[in-house]
């Protein structure tokens, strides 16, 4: 199957390519709870795609399906036109799909630098033996990775906390370090679960700028979950709206904002 249909150009002049990833008829059940019900949507190469919806709508579940943490009960994920079998999270990561978590999952005992270095594990080549014995330029490779990580540190403006153990950082900075670790993998797609939740206005503005810059400078495709509507409208090219596990809207921010089902869901009109 080849669904790499021609792309489009955004208002601010960014080129969006064909379909990079496609979710087809995804259903996810936990015992009696249906977290996702028959949802299909696509993510195009180079775009910023938002997933929004009220609490418990199934947004995080969807991200977990994409990143391999949950195996869908029905339906499949297609990546670059190829159907993905059931995959473990580490295999998905190795495909170039990096993510952050709603509740932040960092290595608290390690420094900021070491945390970000783990992001490069999928890119490290030297095998067990050569590394254990310092053969095959293992340390030279280490230096190259280190250099890349320093660039990301500069990019996200966290030089001053490079050596700080992550467990001691305030919430906003932790979120930033988690983004840095995901970026370190040089991912094709970046999945962000509420990257701005719990931040103050200034921190949010910084984070918005970083996300736009990542997309712009590295051409990274981004799928993000966000509650702040202002942020979503500013950042995203297209939006999927979920409610009670169903997709109730899909389109540009403007289209979605004027969609009656979406307005109802957000105003809490009763479901029947």
């Amino acid at each position, binding site marked *: 199957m080849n669904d790499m249909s021609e792309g489009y150009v955004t208002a601010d002049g960014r080129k969006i390519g064909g379909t990079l990833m496609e979710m087809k008829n995804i259903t996810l059940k936990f015992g009696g709870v249906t977290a996702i019900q028959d949802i299909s949507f696509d993510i195009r190469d180079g775009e910023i795609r938002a997933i929004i919806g009220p609490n418990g709508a199934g947004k995080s579940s969807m991200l977990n399906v994409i990143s391999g943490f949950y195996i869908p009960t029905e339906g499949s994920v297609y990546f670059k036109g190829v159907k993905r079998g059931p995959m473990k999270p580490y295999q998905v990561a190795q495909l170039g799909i*990096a993510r952050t978590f709603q509740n932040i999952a*960092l290595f608290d005992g390690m420094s900021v630098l070491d945390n970000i270095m783990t992001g490069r*594990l999928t890119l490290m080549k030297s095998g067990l033996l050569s590394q254990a014995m310092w053969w095959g330029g293992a340390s030279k490779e280490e230096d190259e990775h280190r250099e890349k990580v320093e660039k990301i540190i500069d990019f996200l403006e966290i030089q001053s906390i490079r050596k700080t153990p992550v467990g001691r950082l305030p919430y906003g900075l932790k979120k930033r370090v988690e983004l840095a670790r995901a970026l370190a993998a040089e991912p094709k797609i970046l999945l962000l679960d509420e990257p701005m939740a719990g931040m103050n206005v200034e921190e949010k503005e910084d984070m918005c700028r970083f996300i736009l810059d990542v997309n712009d400078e590295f051409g990274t495709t981004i799928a993000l979950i966000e509650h702040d509507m202002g942020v979503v409208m500013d950042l995203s090219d297209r939006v999927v709206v979920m409610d009670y596990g169903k997709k109730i809207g899909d389109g540009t921010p403007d289209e979605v904002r004027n969609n009656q089902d979406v307005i109802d869901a957000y105003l809490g009109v009763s479901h029947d």
Partner: protein
Amino acid sequence: MPDQLLFALEVTLNGLMAGVMYALVALGFVLIYKASGIFNYAQGVLALFAALTLVGIQQGQVPFAHLINAVTGMHVTEFGWKIPAILAILLTAGVMVGLAIIIEKLVLKHLVNQAPIILFMATIGMAYFLEGFGDVMWGADIKTLDVGLPQGINETLESVTDKALGYGFFIDNLDIVATLVAIALVTALTLFSQYSKQGRALRAVADDHQAALSVGISLRFIWILVWSIAGFVALVAGIMWGSKSGVQFSLSLIALKALPVLMLGGFTSIPGAIVGGLIIGVGEKLFEFFAGPLIGGATENWFAYVLALVFLVFRPQGLFGEKIIERV
């Protein structure tokens, strides 16, 4: 220096050496506990199994000889060759890696996300299985292990201290070797975990499973890796203890001595395992030396546990463990 003090010094040194052995066994526990949260009851049996296998390979014993003979009516015992110690050690290390893979595939894989108590029970099961399996494979008789490590009192040390202090220290060569080997092992492990790709992955898994998955680490690979390393540490411990007191069932009981070491040092700290081992080693030797005669001796059987208990009351997280304050 008064004789009594010199004697106490010698006892302390011997205690340090014994402590190294305890630390070595405790290290195996800490590695697995850190990476997977499993308290591996089978660690002592791993050491026994490793030592049995080493003797078997070195002596050219036919594995499962008893079983083969019973089933086929043949009478095989030995291949009739001897394998050099160093090669036998390498082969045994290979067997321990194989064992790690089998444990992961047959047991751990099926117990992902189970409660710690279930995993603990599984390791108890493994311990008894391995013990029996070792017997079936290599026979239940007591074996002597000799990989050519120097034995007996170190004479240089004795004569040097005799000249300098007028009192010759009795330190066993084997203890000195064990100490050097333990230092080398810990150094290698530290370098591995700090600077290698797999070591970094190992630390990541020990810190946070979910985050480790998201950066592309396979948990199953890491489990095989830590069980292999723990198997290797067990092999080293097995060689030292086996050379000292023969390879027999009681070797697996050294694991019980590691328990107070862990209570003291904390379950998650490698430095803790080392310092804890040394404190227990020295503590029990000195206590026996000073208090033993007063209360009728044999204090080495229980002193370590009592010390650990007292310690536990005041610092439940161990020497190096982090204090856990519950979030309210």
